[in-house]
């Protein structure tokens, strides 16, 4: 006996999601979503003008010049579909998400509860139409037949699925247009699912293997796969409202104690422990800020409070590169980002650097409680042109910017080519921000770099601020670096030079290229 399955289908879901992500109106424009330069989905209007799935971009645009082309965003598809899933889950229990835009559920129980299959169809349609404007519901025996029924918005009576499928074209088997099987069957003269289903199952299995066998079952309406119910995610985050708004770190940390304990208790009630936590605050002025923290092993309530204290100190007083909040904090949210089952010992999970590592990390945590989060930094080499860009220090335990949630920055890859970056040796001391320095020629004027990157008068003396000038014995460069030329607001053209002074110290200095007045030189690094 085949399971009776209801399927909810939102047509052209990639288009709906891409439009929503791009902030465009999908209703009556000609829109196509492209993946790998091929049309993945298109809006009804575009389809009316001759755009088809699988077309190349140029071909689609030649048929429909006003076509709006959007890139495919599968994450957005899943994200936008989530409200629809939740809405259906509010009506019936046990929903399987086949893919974003398509979900199925066992129909027998809900149909009996709601008073018949037509009532179930109406209910589902009404529920989902709040989220997606275009929705179709179908009911049939077996998942495959139910999907086809949904595409045609019909209810196939029980036991008639095989007859319903028989007249459908063979291409129905191939939802994504990349199956070789369909192609072979067409060349064998089989044009309908009924024709394929009529072939003896044993011969199909012998000729086409497991894939053919599976397709044969589907075509014959014998798809007895049960609905795989998704488990609704549990929200373990804890929100704390502060009324009135608080702008003192100790007060927030004190009030947060209860929230942090609830947070850990909630997780441990589900046999989970938290390894990475996100702290999110909203200020009275409506600003939102979020940061992620990772711990060695798992976080206890005390660890969470420590991180709340460090982070809020950064947000209220600035200092560790976080954006500063201008008003008091009204809401604090603690979100678990990564959880592990309780009892799995973390030491083994993190590559097991053993007892010494554990001890070192504990000492770091102790120093952090003494000095604050910024008291212990983790250095890393990242991509960049200048030495200051290539060294990154983040507070120990805080996730680096490219691993933050919503405010993430693109990762600066070290191995990418960075034109203008000097080869090793790298300066052992880096100045960030760079310190002003004077590089003087024999006449006592600042050394000028021409527009073409050459030194007009060679440097002869170097002068740190408030010091007496020292003679330059040798120098090299200049090496021009044309940074961020694509963005006029942050574009800089600098030239870097290495100079060695009379006492044998070597410096890396940078100056503006082709400056109108005397260029300002800065000290970027010391080869100490």
């Amino acid at each position: 006996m085949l399971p009776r399955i209801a399927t909810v289908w939102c047509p052209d879901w990639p288009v709906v999601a891409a439009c929503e992500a791009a902030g465009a109106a999908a209703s009556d424009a000609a829109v196509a979503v492209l993946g790998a330069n091929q049309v993945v989905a298109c809006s009804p209007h575009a389809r009316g003008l001759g755009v088809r799935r699988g077309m190349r971009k140029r071909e689609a645009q030649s048929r429909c010049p006003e076509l709006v082309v959007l890139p495919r965003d599968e994450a957005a598809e899943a994200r936008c579909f989530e409200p629809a899933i939740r809405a259906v889950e509010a009506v019936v229990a046990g929903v399987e998400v086949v893919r974003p835009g398509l979900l199925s559920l066992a129909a027998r129980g809900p149909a009996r509860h709601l008073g018949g299959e037509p009532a179930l169809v109406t209910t589902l349609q009404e529920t989902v139409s709040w989220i997606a404007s275009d929705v179709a519901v179908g009911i049939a025996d077996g998942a495959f037949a139910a999907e086809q029924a949904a595409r045609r918005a019909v209810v196939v009576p029980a036991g008639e699925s095989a007859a319903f499928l028989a007249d459908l074209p063979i291409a129905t088997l191939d939802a994504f247009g990349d199956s070789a099987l369909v192609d072979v069957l067409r060349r064998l003269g089989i044009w309908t699912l009924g024709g394929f289903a009529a072939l003896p199952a044993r011969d199909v299995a012998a000729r086409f293997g497991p894939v053919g066998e599976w397709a044969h079952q589907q075509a014959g309406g014998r798809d007895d796969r049960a609905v795989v119910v998704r488990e609704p995610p549990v929200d373990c985050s804890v929100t704390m409202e502060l009324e009135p708004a608080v702008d003192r770190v100790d007060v927030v940390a004190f009030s947060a104690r209860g929230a942090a304990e609830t947070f850990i208790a909630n997780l441990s009630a589900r046999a989970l422990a938290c390894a990475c936590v996100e702290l999110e605050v909203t200020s009275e002025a409506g600003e939102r800020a979020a940061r992620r923290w990772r711990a060695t092993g798992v976080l206890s309530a005390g660890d969470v409070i420590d991180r709340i204290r460090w982070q809020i100190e950064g947000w209220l007083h600035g200092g560790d590169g976080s954006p500063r909040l201008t008003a008091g904090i009204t809401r604090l949210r603690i979100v678990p980002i990564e959880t592990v089952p309780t009892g799995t010992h973390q030491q083994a999970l993190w590559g097991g650097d053993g007892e010494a590592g554990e001890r070192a990390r504990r000492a770091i945590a102790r120093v952090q409680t003494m000095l604050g989060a910024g008291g212990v930094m983790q250095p890393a080499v990242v991509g960049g042109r200048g030495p200051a860009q290539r060294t990154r220090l983040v507070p120990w335990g805080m996730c680096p910017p490219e691993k933050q949630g919503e405010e993430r920055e693109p990762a600066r890859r070290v191995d990418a080519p960075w034109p203008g970056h000097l080869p090793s040796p790298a300066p052992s001391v880096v100045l960030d921000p760079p310190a002003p320095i004077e590089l003087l020629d024999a006449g006592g004027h600042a050394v000028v770099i021409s527009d073409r990157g050459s030194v007009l008068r060679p440097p002869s003396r170097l002068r740190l601020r408030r010091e007496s000038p020292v003679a330059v014995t040798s120098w090299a460069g200049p090496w021009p670096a044309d940074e961020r030329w694509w963005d006029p607001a942050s574009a800089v053209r600098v030239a870097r030079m290495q100079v060695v002074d009379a006492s044998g110290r070597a410096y890396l200095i940078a100056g503006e290229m082709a400056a109108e007045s005397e260029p300002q030189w800065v000290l970027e690094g010391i080869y100490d």
Partner: protein
Amino acid sequence: MLDLAAAKPVAAAALGARSPALPVLPALGGLLPGGLRRGSTISVTGSVSLLLALLAEASAEGAWCVLVDLPVGSATRVGAAQMGAERLGAEAARDFGIDLSRLPVVPTAGESWTNVVGALLDAFDIVAARAPARLADADLRRLVARARSRESVLLSFLSGGAGRWPMADLRLVAEPGEWSGIGDGHGRLARRRMRIRVDGRGQAARSREVTLWLPGSRGAVEPHEIARVVELSDVRRAVS
């Protein structure tokens, strides 16, 4: 005279010491023939690169190192304070062979310098710290004793005239080096020949001088071609 220095390793072995010493780069073998002895205090003067090179091999082999109040480059050393925040050049550290994932940096320990260094000595294999200008003798003795009892190495970085560390077992002083590869408007910094003077107490009492390429080509450390360990006492004897 009773040879205390010779008796020491036996005692350490009898007490079941963790491991005799932390390894140093092969190029530094002339400088520290036995590696960094656990529990010792070593003062380094004159070069951040030298300090990083000392950490490199141990760090690559899995030791945990930490930098406190470092680095302070020669720009600050000549007196122009508040010039801008000086940071570790992570790339230089990596090129020496340091594993950055095991190198936390404490940029400014401030008032709690003694407590921070003390806490870190409990857990880390090597603690490299810039000695503050003023440090009470009692604190200094306590830290040296802590390093000895926890079997970690305390590297104190002395920036020029400021700071002192009278109780160091070993003193390394880097002299201003000579850069090669750079000319008058051509070439680039390639490597630096650096003379390092070593003296100390006890076993290491004889002062020596070692010449190294620091940094050598590609940022690593290389022995100087005519790498020679000159025993200064021998030189003096030869002269007189």
